């Protein structure tokens, strides 16, 4: 054991990509759903543990730089893990691992058994892409892994039960490709200007070149391209359909990881490469992002209020929550960025928990429409209690994670001297209360329809991951040295202009 550890100990960053990639092909070879699930479980949980070790290592010894194949930087490809992506990696792998616990029972109802091994293979591929985007220190590789994760997520979305899943996946594909193209275009221009693709090197070269016209066009292309992937309002239109029609497990997985990694990429480009808070003239360069963020907060929440399908409602709520993250970034100060990053962490946990609740409801009721929630407080008490707690987090009630995020966002707004924006943040929280309350009201105060079938509580294998996540929303609402501790240190590092 000691010997094995000594062998892989230095290669942990590379294993984060290589292991899921190889395991994906292994799944295809196995072809048995249970065995494929077991492989995926082992890989996902060991990746999660790996991410924990990496974060610990970053916290104790500083940034990790791993040179692939021994080619020296900046010519070779570097994997570079600092506080920022160590945290994101922990979130992504953690969500992957926890969601898998619920997967077998949930997809049994949605995906034919003989195709389930493919589901696990694609799931692992998607995880490879997401982890790759997170750990790589190379701008071009970000694009490569982005495509891996995107292509596999289109495939995952298309597994939904209704034919509309296909159209949703196609639309997601077209939009995602447009986004990917513009990202590539932007990276190409940066390469043209600087002759390098290594992120650290790029940043150093750009600092010498200064913000000339090509660099600005590159920044615009990347902002727009990542904006599509991140589903920034008004580029979010692929998201509600993709989330609504994808299998329940896929929604829980993608909602908590894909947009989060896209947010990471945006932060990485904005602060590590373009250093918008220094090179461009400070907060003004993010005025567009701020407007889009505020518009998303309100448009997303308002649409959510009127939705009849709870899954779709939460999808629009995601659009609004992404608005908060963008807003945090746009303040370009320490508190704001801390708020954005903490919200990345917190929103991943709460939204994943909520979508798992919907997976339980879908399994038992066969629908996630509001009418299916009538009397659910009594029929599936544990599941529905999880929804209520997750909903409270979404609203931002104290002692839940949502409050912590909003606290830092409001501090960020005030630090930037934008108190009207702080008011808007608090106002939009009330909208979240409205759409959550609609469901709670139906669940607790409306009787189930006459003659409804007796239903049982969701299976333990699905309740467990749901409650792990919902419990975490309470734990991290009080104990924040992991989420806020790392996020604020990362924000300090980024605002200070380092990488």
């Amino acid at each position, binding site marked *: 054991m000691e010997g094995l550890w000594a062998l892989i100990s230095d290669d942990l960053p590379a294993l984060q990509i290589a292991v899921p990639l190889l395991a994906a092909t292994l799944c295809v070879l196995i072809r048995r759903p249970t065995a494929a699930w077991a492989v995926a479980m082992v890989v996902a949980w060991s990746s999660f543990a790996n991410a924990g070790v990496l974060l610990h290592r970053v916290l104790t010894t500083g940034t990790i730089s791993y040179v692939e194949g021994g080619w020296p930087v900046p010519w070779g490809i570097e994997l570079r893990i600092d506080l920022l992506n160590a945290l994101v990696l922990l979130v992504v792998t953690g969500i992957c691992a926890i969601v898998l616990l619920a997967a077998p029972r949930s997809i049994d109802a949605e995906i034919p058994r003989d195709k389930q091994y493919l589901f696990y293979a694609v799931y692992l591929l998607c995880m490879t892409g997401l982890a790759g985007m997170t750990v790589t220190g190379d701008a071009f590789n970000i694009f490569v892994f982005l495509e891996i994760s995107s292509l596999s997520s289109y495939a995952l979305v298309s597994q939904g039960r209704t034919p509309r899943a296909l159209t949703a996946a196609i639309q997601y594909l*077209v939009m995602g490709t*447009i986004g990917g193209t513009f990202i590539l275009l932007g990276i190409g221009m940066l390469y043209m200007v600087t002759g390098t693709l290594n992120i650290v090197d790029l940043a150093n070269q750009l600092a010498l070149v200064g913000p000339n016209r090509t660099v600005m066009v590159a920044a615009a292309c990347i902002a727009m391209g990542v904006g599509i992937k991140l589903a920034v309002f008004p*580029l979010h*239109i692929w998201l509600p359909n993709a989330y609504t029609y994808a299998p329940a497990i896929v929604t829980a997985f993608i909602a908590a990881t894909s947009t989060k990694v896209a947010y990471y990429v945006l932060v990485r480009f904005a602060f590590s490469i373009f250093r918008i808070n220094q090179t461009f003239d400070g907060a003004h360069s993010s005025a567009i992002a701020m407007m889009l963020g505020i518009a998303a907060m309100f448009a997303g929440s308002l649409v959510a209020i*009127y939705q009849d399908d709870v899954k779709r409602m939460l999808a629009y709520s995601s659009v609004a929550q992404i608005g908060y993250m963008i807003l945090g970034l746009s303040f370009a100060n320490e508190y704001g960025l801390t708020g954005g990053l903490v919200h990345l962490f917190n929103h991943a946990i709460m939204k994943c928990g909520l979508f798992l609740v919907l997976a339980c409801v879908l399994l038992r009721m066969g629908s996630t429409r509001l009418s299916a929630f009538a009397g659910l407080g009594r029929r599936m008490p544990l599941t529905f209690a999880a929804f209520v707690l997750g909903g409270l987090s979404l609203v931002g009630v*104290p002692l839940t994670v949502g409050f912590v995020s909003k606290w830092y966002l409001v501090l960020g707004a005030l630090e930037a001297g934008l108190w009207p924006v702080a008011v808007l943040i608090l106002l939009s929280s009330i909208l979240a209360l409205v759409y959550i309350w609609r469901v709670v009201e139906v669940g607790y105060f409306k009787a189930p329809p006459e003659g409804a079938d007796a239903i049982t509580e969701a299976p333990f294998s699905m309740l467990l991951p749901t409650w792990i996540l919902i419990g975490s929303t309470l734990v991290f609402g009080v104990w*924040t040295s992991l989420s*806020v501790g790392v996020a604020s240190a990362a924000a300090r590092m980024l605002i200070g202009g380092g990488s």
Partner: protein
Amino acid sequence: MIELLPPGAILILGGLLVPLLPGRLKPWAGVALPVLGFIHLLALDKGFVRTLVVFGYELTPVRIDGLSLVFGYVFFIAAILGGIYGLHVRDNVQLAAALTYVGSAIGGVFAGDLITLFIYWELTAVTSVFLVWAGRTKRAARAGMRYLVIQVGSGVILLAGVILHFVDGGSLEFGKLIGADGRLGSAGIGVLLIFIAFGIKCAFPLLHNWLQDAYPESTVTGTVYLSIFTTKLAVYALARGFPGTGILIVIGAVMTAFPIFFAVIENDLRRVLTYSLNNQLGFMVVGIGIGTQLAINGTAAYAFANIIFEGLLFMAMGAVLLRTGTCLGSELGGLYKTMPRTAALCIVGAASISAFPFLSGFVTKPLILDETASGHHVVIYLMLLFASAGVFHHSGIKIPYFAFFAHDSGKRVKEAPGHMLFAMAVMAVMCIGIGVYPEILYRVLPYPMEYHAYTTTHVITQYQLLLFSALAFVFLQKTGLYPPELRSVNLDFDWTYRKALPALVRGSVSLGRVAVGAILVPTRSLVDRVLRLVYQLHGPEGVFARTWTTGSIAFWAVVVLCGYLLYFLAR
């Protein structure tokens, strides 16, 4: 182990578990948990402070000092008696809400920092609204919703204030927030917002309507609980954060005076008591505004005494409501024949609130009045004297008179149940006990003091006030200037006043209607129009909710790109 729990936690956690108890044990939890909590509090030493680092800030969930202890003690005593009073209740919602509500209020009193205070502040709002809703009428549902909006709004304002105060470089510690000059004008915007948040919960004039709106809609026991905790928590918060704030003297004086007019013309006796609650809070607010050690002592002592006698009055009216099904003055009368004990206990409460010698009101109110006089606030002092006379009228005479005497309504109902009588009797004994041995109460006050309530001046002034008011009442009764037919409308010193006031009120009501017509209706239609627009844009068929074609998304992508390009290149 036991000191790890904040005071109040036993009630909150226990309250949540109440629905799991078997039916007959449930109401006993309402007594047992406060008793346990009280023992827990007594086990903690004065000066005990516990800090906790929560998301990077050092918070103080528990701070036990003189000021918080007085309120803590009386809150627990009131909770225990409230529990005994409510032993007939089997309703999960009421029991759980009452216990968590009391626990949150107690937690708020012992909060040592503003974040903890905010959390308990919101908890009291959210838990207490279930007591209003427990009335289970349409009116209660609507009043509860309005109440919730205002209470949660107060919390949001508090949070906004705390954040602004913190960003301005203020400390999160919940100490004195107002500057040494006691002027709000020189305080920061954050402190101002905190002040407003406290003011809403304390029912400052014009911010007070939620009180009369919601409290009388609750159940027999619910109103008793509600009347005690929310407003007194606000008084405590003001006494902690804003002692010596000059404006509070004026606000308090207005609070003592204006509800009298409304109380006099109100027919629902529980609503009369809510007005009287306003008036009583006014005295405390004046004490805080003066801000000397003696005045703060007076405020704390008066809050202590008030919780007992006002609680007693609410309990008596609750018993009447339970037995007769109504609390309307015009429907009641003559109940002393069959509810003699309730009547007697109610009179003790009424005499206490009127500050008769040898009762708790007499030994606590002069603390505030003396400080007002010695601080040369002559006008304020006279207003308070006038308000004291007013209290005697609407709480001291009107409540017992209309419920138990007056015109015989012919109702022959049973005496109040034993547990209610017991709770009321304990309260009455406390009123008398404090009145006779005030040193017991004086000893727990925040600041040490030497004070003698039974001086010749005090006793004579008070008797003059009371006897002449009573004389006026009797005179008007005997000369027939109080025709029994009008008794539901009014009861006051002066018959011109009695005629003028309804006219004035009627006038202001119609003026109000005009104002409503002029302002509210256009606002409402504007709100409607905005909501319709929101629905058109965001509703299920709205432009934001529809599935766009891929082409149009691509179009927006181009728009965003062009926006960025123009923005970057234009500079």
